C-alpha cells in the first residue's frame, strides 16, 4: 500500500510542477497541500491500489507501447488507403475472440489496444470473450492469431 501512495505522490507532484511553472515557496506549499488532499481523497475512495498504479507493469510497458505504436501507424496507413479506395474495398466483419489474459487490468489493456488501432474496435468484453468489429476481415484473422494477446499476457506475468 505504501509504495502505491508514494508513486501516486510522485505522479501528482510532477504533474503539479509541470502545470504550474511557478516555483515560489508559497505556491509550492499550496501545491503540496493540494497533492496531500488528493491523496487523502483517493485513499478514502479506495483508488490507491495496483490497478490505478500498475507498478508491476512499468518495466515491460515501454516495449509494449513501442510495439503498439508501430501497429497503430501501420493500421492507420491501411485504413487511410481503404478510405481513399472507397466502399468497394472494405469487407467489414464482426467476430468473438478468446483472450488468455487473466486480470481485469490486462483485459482492459487488450481491449483498449484493439480499439486504439484503427480498423478494429472492441465492441464487447465479457469474461474472456472479446467481440471485435473490423473494417477488414483479414485484420480479424491477424487478431485471432493472437500476437497482441500474447504480448498482453507477457505484460501481466511478473
Amino acid at each position, binding site marked *: 500500500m505504501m509504495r502505491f501512495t508514494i508513486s501516486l505522490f510522485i505522479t501528482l507532484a510532477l*504533474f503539479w510542477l*509541470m*502545470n504550474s*511553472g511557478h516555483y515560489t515557496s508559497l505556491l509550492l506549499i499550496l501545491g503540496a497541500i493540494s497533492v496531500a488532499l488528493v491523496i487523502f481523497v483517493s485513499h478514502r475512495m479506495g483508488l490507491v491500489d495496483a490497478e490505478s498504479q500498475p507498478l508491476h507493469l512499468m518495466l515491460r510497458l515501454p516495449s509494449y507501447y513501442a510495439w503498439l505504436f508501430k501497429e*497503430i*501507424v501501420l493500421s*492507420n496507413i491501411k*485504413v*487511410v488507403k481503404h*478510405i*481513399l479506395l*472507397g*466502399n468497394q474495398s*472494405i*469487407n*467489414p*466483419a*464482426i467476430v468473438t475472440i478468446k483472450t488468455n489474459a487473466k486480470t481485469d487490468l490486462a483485459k482492459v489493456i487488450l*481491449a*483498449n*489496444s484493439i*480499439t*486504439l*488501432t*484503427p*480498423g*478494429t*474496435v*472492441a*465492441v*464487447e468484453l465479457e469474461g474472456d470473450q472479446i*467481440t471485435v*468489429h473490423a*473494417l477488414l476481415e483479414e485484420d480479424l484473422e491477424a487478431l485471432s492469431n493472437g500476437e497482441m494477446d500474447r504480448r498482453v499476457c507477457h505484460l501481466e506475468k511478473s
Partner: protein
Amino acid sequence: MEQFIELLSGISLLIGSLLCIAGGIGLLRFPDFYTRMHAAGVTDTLATTMIIIGLVLLNPGALVVMKLITILLLILLTSPTAGHALAKAAYRSGLKPFIKNHKNHQESKSSKR
C-alpha cells in the same frame, strides 16, 4: 539546423492535417456506424500524434512540451474508451453491422420482397 527542424515540424503538421481530412472523408463515405467509427479512429490516433509532434518540434519550452505530451497521452487514453462505449451502446441496442457478403445481401433482398 533550425530551419530543418522547422521544415520537419511543418511536414508533421501537414501530414496530421491530411490524416484529419482523410478521417473526415471516411466518416462521410463509409456505409454504416461501425465502419465510420474506424474512420474516426484515424483522426483520434495518428493525426493527433503527428500534429502534437509537429508542435513539439517547434520547441516552445520544456513546460509546454510536457503539457503537449500530457494532452497526447490523455487523448490516446480517452479516445478508445469513448469509442468502445459508443460501439457497445450501438451493439447492445441492436444495431446490426453492415456485412458485405453476397449471400446475406441476396437474403436480405428476398426477405424484403
